[in-house]
């Protein structure tokens, strides 16, 4: 299975702090994506990083990928209360199916 595993399972920080979430997977991938899910809502795509890329930025988001360690990290800088959500990493291999982890629950308090 290429299933992603996020770490930590839950993270609580204050507004303005940075939040870092990690994801590990088991087999070779084509790309890795991060999604956010606000409570009771759908999944929102955040960022995609391909297997030949090492780092990508999008606004306050920074994603790194280390294929030798089969791991990725998502950094959210200067967090806001609105960033409170569950964050999932998902990988694809040769096919199109996304393989999700269980997610990290982030709580940002004012």
């Amino acid at each position, binding site marked *: 299975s290429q299933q992603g595993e996020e770490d930590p399972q839950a993270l609580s920080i204050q507004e303005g702090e940075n939040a870092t979430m990690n994801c590990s997977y088991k087999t070779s991938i084509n790309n890795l994506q991060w999604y956010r899910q606000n409570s009771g809502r759908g999944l929102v795509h955040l960022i995609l990083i391909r297997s030949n890329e090492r780092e990508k930025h999008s606004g306050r988001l920074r994603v790194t990928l280390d294929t030798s360690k089969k791991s990725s990290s998502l950094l959210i800088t200067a967090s806001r209360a609105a960033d409170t959500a569950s964050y999932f990493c998902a990988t694809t291999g040769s096919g199109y199916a996304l393989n*999700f982890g269980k997610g990290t629950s982030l709580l940002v308090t004012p």
Partner: protein
Amino acid sequence: EAGVTQFPSHSVIEKGQTVTLRCDPISGHDNLYWYRRVMGKEIKFLLHFVKESKQDESGMPNNRFLAERTGGTYSTLKVQPAELEDSGVYFCASSHYQETQYFGPGTRLLVL
């Protein structure tokens, strides 16, 4: 541009009944996917359509689940007969190519 839409948003049925979920992908997206998340578990892939053809249905749990995509537009996922373990959130997603998949809000299914 409208996003992926799903109907209904919630469904409560009794064991043994039939439920049909609908997904309308983003216009122009040939690829359509179904996923589900049962309580406490990861989001799991069910199947993938390319236009009206099933490209990968390796995640379908059993023959009580039937997915169709008539004309390569919207898709339906029918569960017949529903069992208690089918309860969960069913997500639909669509994509243009093999990259970013855009998800709908999900259908919350509760089987009593």
